[in-house]
């Protein structure tokens, strides 16, 4: 039998992989965004598991909205990325540190 906690631990592992991904792929902004998606996937799994085990649909509804938000977020994020490319000719994160200190 698969317990709720199994799902939770699974999602927490994916969550942490997402976190680790941010560390590993630090220079690549797209990769960071994809890692955030990974985090969101973990969160979603959490919600759905809770929803399922708690027999409460609101968790799934939440996931629905998270998906919507994520989509909108990605749209805006990639738009900004495009602007950045236009401005600097690169999306290399190593050059985006003119603001610091």
């Amino acid at each position, binding site marked *: *039998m*698969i*317990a*709720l*906690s*199994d799902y*939770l*631990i*699974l999602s*927490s*592992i994916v*969550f942490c992989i*997402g*976190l*680790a*991904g*941010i*560390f590993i*792929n*630090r*220079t*690549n902004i*797209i*990769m960071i965004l994809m*890692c955030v*998606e*990974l985090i969101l*996937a973990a969160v*979603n*799994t959490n919600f759905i598991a809770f*929803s*399922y*085990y*708690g*027999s409460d*649909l*609101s968790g*799934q*509804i939440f*996931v*629905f909205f998270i998906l*919507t*938000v994520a*989509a*909108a977020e*990605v*749209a*805006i994020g*990639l*738009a*900004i*990325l*495009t*602007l950045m*490319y236009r*401005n*600097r000719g690169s999306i*290399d994160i*190593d*050059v985006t540190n003119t603001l610091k200190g």
Partner: protein
Amino acid sequence: MEFTSILFYVFSLFFVGSSFVMIVSRNTAKAALWLILTFFSAASLWLLLEAEFLAITLILIYVGAVMVLFMFVIKMLDTDQSTLRAQFTRYLPLGIFVSLIVIVQMTLVLNAGPFDLDTVGLPEQHGASYSNITAIAQQLYTVYVYPFELAAILLLIAIIAAITLVHRTQVKSKKQNISEQINVQAKDRMRFASIKKNSTKESK
């Protein structure tokens, strides 16, 4: 072991495995593909949790739209992979360390009891007539009508923002080409002018 359990483990393996491969992938485009696999496994897991609608939505929206957008941008911006992957390992130990600690913490907490099988147990199974979509829809258009409208606004913002930001009217930006700057030669910038010696005297 039940079949669903086996499926759970299989999908979990895929879920974790593909996400792991994604983060260590050296190529952004390949990583995106691994992410798609991750989403597929996630969707499969969700199916196990009787969230059919969301599983389908995940595939449709994420794989069908979001990841395509990602791929589009990846290819459009055509980033230099070698520089992006530089110093790949520099923060790897830190990342692994932090992640492991967080995993341990989370596992300790989540394993603590309230979410055990004994405590929570399995929910009552819905009959075949149960439609996840209907149930969600019922909720969405009644109880969650307000958030639903908000989601609409959110998407409107995304549209406006994306158009406002990326839509080209005229190019006003001055971008800096670093490689051009670095590779510049002295002769390109400097001109030796030969000045006659007597010219200075004449000017006096």
